[in-house]
C-alpha cells in the first residue's frame, strides 16, 4: 500500500488523503486509482480530507481532483489542509469551498425523528438504508449485512454486521444494539471496529462520537 505519490491515513478527525503535489494531476489520479483499487473496504460515501505540502495546486486543479474523487469513488471531500514543508502541523486549513461539501453539510435534513422500520433480520448481502432519517431493525444484523442511516441506528437484536449512522455527517447520531458485536461501525466520517474475537457482553450498548473525536462504546442504560 506504500505509494510515494498519495497515501491514505486515518486520523482522529477522519480519513486523510495525503498528496505529493510535485507531480501532475493525471499522475495523482493514477496513483489514487492504484491506492483505492487495493482497498477492500468500500469507501463510498466517506468524507475525507486532502492534505498536501507546497507547492499547492491551482484552485482549478483542486477542483478537478475533488470532482474526480466524488464522481469516481463517491468520496466526500470535507476539507483541504496545506502543510508546512518542515513540520507536520497544518499552516492553513482551508475548508473546501465547493458545492459537493456544502450540499452535504450536517443537519441538512431536519427530519431525523422520522424512522424506517425493518421487521425482519438483515442477512449477509442485504442492505437497508434511510437517507432522510433513522433505521430501527426488529432482529439481528448478520455479518455481511449493512445498515445505513442519516440519523440513528437501533438494532433490537444482535448487530454483527456493519452500521453507518449519520451518513451525511451528523455526528450526534448514535448506534444502539441489544448485542453490539459489529464488524465495523461508522458515525459520520469516524470508523471503529471492535477487537477481533470480542464476545457479546450480555447487555445493550450504545456507540457514539465521544469528546476525543473517536467512537466510544458503552453500556446503554438510558439516553
Amino acid at each position, binding site marked *: 500500500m506504500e505509494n510515494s505519490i498519495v497515501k491514505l491515513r486515518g486520523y482522529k478527525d477522519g480519513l486523510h488523503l495525503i498528496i505529493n503535489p510535485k507531480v501532475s494531476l493525471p499522475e495523482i489520479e493514477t496513483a489514487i486509482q492504484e491506492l483505492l483499487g487495493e482497498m477492500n473496504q468500500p469507501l463510498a460515501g466517506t468524507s475525507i480530507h486532502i492534505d498536501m505540502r507546497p507547492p499547492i495546486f491551482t484552485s482549478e486543479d483542486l477542483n478537478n481532483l475533488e470532482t474526480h474523487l466524488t464522481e469516481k469513488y463517491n468520496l466526500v471531500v470535507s476539507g483541504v489542509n496545506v502543510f508546512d514543508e518542515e513540520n507536520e502541523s497544518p499552516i492553513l486549513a482551508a475548508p473546501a469551498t465547493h458545492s459537493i461539501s456544502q450540499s452535504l453539510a450536517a443537519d441538512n435534513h431536519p427530519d431525523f425523528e422520522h424512522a424506517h422500520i425493518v421487521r425482519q*433480520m438483515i442477512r*449477509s*448481502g442485504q442492505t437497508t438504508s434511510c437517507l432522510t432519517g433513522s433505521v430501527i431493525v426488529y432482529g*439481528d444484523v448478520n*455479518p*455481511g449485512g449493512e445498515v445505513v442511516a442519516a440519523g440513528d441506528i437501533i438494532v433490537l437484536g444482535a448487530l454483527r454486521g456493519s452500521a453507518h449512522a449519520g451518513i451525511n455527517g451528523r455526528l450526534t447520531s448514535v448506534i444502539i444494539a441489544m448485542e453490539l458485536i459489529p464488524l465495523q461501525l461508522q458515525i459520520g466520517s469516524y470508523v471503529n471496529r471492535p477487537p477481533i474475537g470480542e464476545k457479546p457482553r450480555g447487555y445493550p450498548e450504545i456507540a457514539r462520537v465521544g469528546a476525543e473525536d473517536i467512537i466510544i462504546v458503552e453500556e446503554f442504560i438510558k439516553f
Partner: protein
Amino acid sequence: MGKVIVITSGKGGVGKTTSTANLGTALAMIGKTVVMVDADVGLRNLDVVMGLESRVVYTSMDVFEKRCELYKALVKDRRVEDLMLLAASQRNRKDDIKPEQMQEVCEKLKQEYDFVLVDSPAGIEQGFRNAAAGADEAIIITTPDLSAIRDADRIIGLLQNQEIQPINLVLNRLSPALVKKGNMISKNDVLDFLNIDLLGVVPEDTGVIASTNRGIPLVHNAGSQGAEAYMRIARRMTGQRVPIPEMREENFFSHVANWFSRNK
C-alpha cells in the same frame, strides 16, 4: 401432489449432493415416491454418488431441448422402489438453462412424485437461480464453520426474496467432541445466527467417503450414525415428529457405557 425442495448451501463441499442422495434414498425407503434432480450442470456428481453414472442416457438438457420425453430421461434406482434420478448434462454450462425450463420440469414432476429434490450447485449465480426456480421449499445444508454459515445466511436471504417457505436447516458434519473442547461452533450458536428451523443434525461420519466412492448412499448401511441421522431427517420431512437427539461424544468411556447398557 408432491413438493419441490431445493437442497442448497452457498458454499461448496458442505454435503449438498451427499445429503440429496441420502435423503432421496431414505424417503424412498420409507415408502415415498422420489425424484432427485441434479441442477449442477457441467459439474454433475449426483449420479456418481448414487452409483448410477453408467446408466445415464438422457440428461435434463435433452428434456429442456425436447430431444426426449421427461419420463424417458429418469434413471431408476434399482435398490429401492420409486426412486428416480434426472441427471444434469456434463457438456453444457449453467447459463444454457433458463429458470423457466427448470420450473416447467419441476412442475410436471411434482404432479407424479411425492418429493422432487433438487441438488443445487454451489454459488449464488445462474446455477443456483435455476435450481431454486421451481422450488416450493428449501433445505439449507451447512457445516459448523464460519464461512459455510455466512454463505448459508446469504442464501437464506436470497431464498426469502423469492418467497420460498419454509426454509429448514441441516447441520452437517458436527463433531460433538470438538464442540465440547470449544473448537467447533455449537448447534445452538448456528441456530441463533441463522434463525431458521432445524431439520436435523448429521454427525461427522467417515463412512461418507467410502459410500461416495462406492456409489452406495450411506442410508443403505443402517446402523451408522450418519445413516440414522438421515433416516430421522427423512421422517421429519414426511411430517413425522422425530425428536433431534443430543449428539453424544464417542470415546472410550461411552463405548464401555454402551457395552454395559447393551448387556443389561
